[in-house]
């Protein structure tokens, strides 16, 4: 039994085992403007149900094409607002932020919950010690309409992160290195539970990057049990667990256990065309770039922006590079604003964008032309992901992205981080 099994067991009031198909009360359901239109269509046209059992537990986010880049998106957004109003669904409109970050910021997702999000990066919120499952639109529609949904209890793999990461190595480098080793199908059919002394060096901001990227090795979910770092973070935000879970990992049985020594890692990138094509930054150093994007549900949190600020302060973005920075939520945006970070970045020549998924998913606000190369702190580097099918995306940490923005080519952030 891993923590996910324990949460499901507690929710059901009986013990479950990996592989069981069980029906759970879904504590929170959410969808975004890429998936919500089909949720609405399924509910109104296909199922034709009038009353939504879980409307008060449902959250809609306008984050993927926000603000609307064209009339089609504006129309979708208008319909989301109409539907939310009619059914009493909580709507987070343009500028609120990326769904996974807002459910963290607003205390919508809390420890011990079972959360379904119509977005593949929903496991992000598992770093709060909850069971987060990404689903499609029909799954979300059925959960919203009936309040319950089936899940297959995933077998859990224990991943132990051991040692203290070196200066310049961020949690993005850790998770990219793991994906590079295990492959994009490395955790297919399984959930990942993180342990190890390295966690004590990783803030909540850093942890959300790790659970977020577990999707890229096809993990069904990712979770980090609450520890003192998480409890202090919850307390500082006035949040409490939704469901008290008595969990002793020492008594847990996992289907597998993998240990990663993170103290030996160096900054890495995932080179195109896939997320497991991971190489050290040194190997691709000097690759000329046209754009840098710092943001997304993967790396658009305050610590990420802080890192970029430390590197870019008093420097200039290279003349051949557009450097776009998008805080992941309004809360992050305001904190970065108050601390003066946005001013430092703007003075360095960055473009400060509103919270949006836009550039990451190739929707808007920084697409790439044919042959262009980007360094992005995002989660996918598939061909054409950020624009033209013959454009290239290197996935990196915010430190590598910021250092590369200064030099106009991929560089190891070491000298900027150590040089202070």
């Amino acid at each position, binding site marked *: 039994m891993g923590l996910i099994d324990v949460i499901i067991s507690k929710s059901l009031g009986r013990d479950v085992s990996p592989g069981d*198909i069980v*029906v759970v009360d879904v504590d929170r359901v959410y969808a975004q403007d*890429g*998936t919500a239109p*089909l949720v609405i269509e*399924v509910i109104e046209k*296909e*199922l034709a149900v009038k009353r939504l059992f879980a409307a008060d537990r449902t959250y809609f986010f306008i984050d*993927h*094409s926000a603000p609307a880049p*064209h*009339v*089609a*998106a504006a*129309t*979708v957004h208008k319909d989301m607002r109409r539907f939310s109003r009619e059914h009493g669904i909580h709507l987070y409109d343009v500028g609120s932020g990326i769904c996974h970050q807002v459910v963290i910021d607003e205390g919508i997702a809390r420890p011990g919950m079972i959360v379904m999000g*119509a*977005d*593949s990066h929903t496991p992000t919120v598992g770093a709060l010690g909850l069971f987060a499952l*990404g*689903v*499609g*639109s*029909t*799954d979300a529609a*059925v959960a919203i309409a*009936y309040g*319950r949904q*089936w899940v297959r209890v995933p077998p859990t793999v224990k991943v132990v992160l051991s040692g203290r990461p070196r200066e310049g190595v961020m949690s993005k480098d850790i998770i990219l290195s793991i994906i590079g080793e295990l492959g*994009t*199908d490395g955790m*297919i*059919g399984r959930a990942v539970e993180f342990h190890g002394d390295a966690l004590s060096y990783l803030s909540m901001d850093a942890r959300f990057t790790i659970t977020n990227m577990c999707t890229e090795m*096809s993990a*069904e979910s990712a979770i980090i049990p609450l520890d003192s770092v998480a409890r202090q973070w919850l307390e500082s935000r006035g949040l409490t667990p939704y469901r008290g879970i008595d969990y002793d990992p020492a008594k847990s049985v996992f289907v597998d256990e993998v240990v990663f020594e993170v103290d030996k890692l160096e900054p890495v990138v995932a080179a195109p065309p*896939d997320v497991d094509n991971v190489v050290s930054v040194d190997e691709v150093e000097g690759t000329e770039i046209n754009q840098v994007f710092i943001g997304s549900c993967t790396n658009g949190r305050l610590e990420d922006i802080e890192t970029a600020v430390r590197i870019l302060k008093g420097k200039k973005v290279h003349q051949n590079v557009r450097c776009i920075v998008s805080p992941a939520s309004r809360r992050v945006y305001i904190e970065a604003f108050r601390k003066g970070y946005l001013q430092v970045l703007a003075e360095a020549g960055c473009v400060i964008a509103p919270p949006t998924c836009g550039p990451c*998913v*190739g*929707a*808007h606000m920084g697409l790439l032309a044919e042959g262009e190369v980007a360094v992005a702190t995002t989660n*996918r580097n*598939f*061909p*054409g*992901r950020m*624009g033209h*099918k013959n454009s290239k995306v290197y996935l990196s940490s915010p430190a590598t992205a910021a250092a590369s923005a200064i030099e106009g080519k991929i560089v190891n952030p070491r000298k900027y981080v150590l040089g202070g």
Partner: protein
Amino acid sequence: MIRGRCWKLGDNISTDHIISGKYKFSAIDSIEAMLPHVLEEVIPDFYRKVSKGDVIVAGKNFGKGSSREQAPRLLKLVGISAIVAKSYAHIFYRNAINIGLPVIVAQRIPDASETGDVIEIDLERGVVRNLSKGIEEKVSPFPRELAVILEAGGIVEYIRRYGVPPWLRSTG
């Protein structure tokens, strides 16, 4: 019984391969308008070449990536009657069951099959055959909870028929 012509694909076919985000997030606002772009970077003109009843046979981790449900819906809309792959990303798998598109896990058939072969799937007996190559493979039946959804043609059809999802029917 499902019988159709094979389209052989490799490992790690993502939902971006099936329908690129640039269409999903473009001004194209209907699923029909996305049809010409299905799998276009993997098999040029797939939309024109595919016939009703055809079967996709693929390697591991089929449907990885984005949760976009347009991916299985578009494959069904262009006429794909079933997918046989070594493994599936779980969101794609759930989406396919929900829309009544059989997603079968097999190991030998994907290795042995080529585009153009005739594939036969007997869900009741749990057998997949490549008639062109003369091989067959036993496959695990769907768990009962999912089989009832597939048999109805998808979760929406199930709910239309019985008024509620299967789990509310059996417990209520």
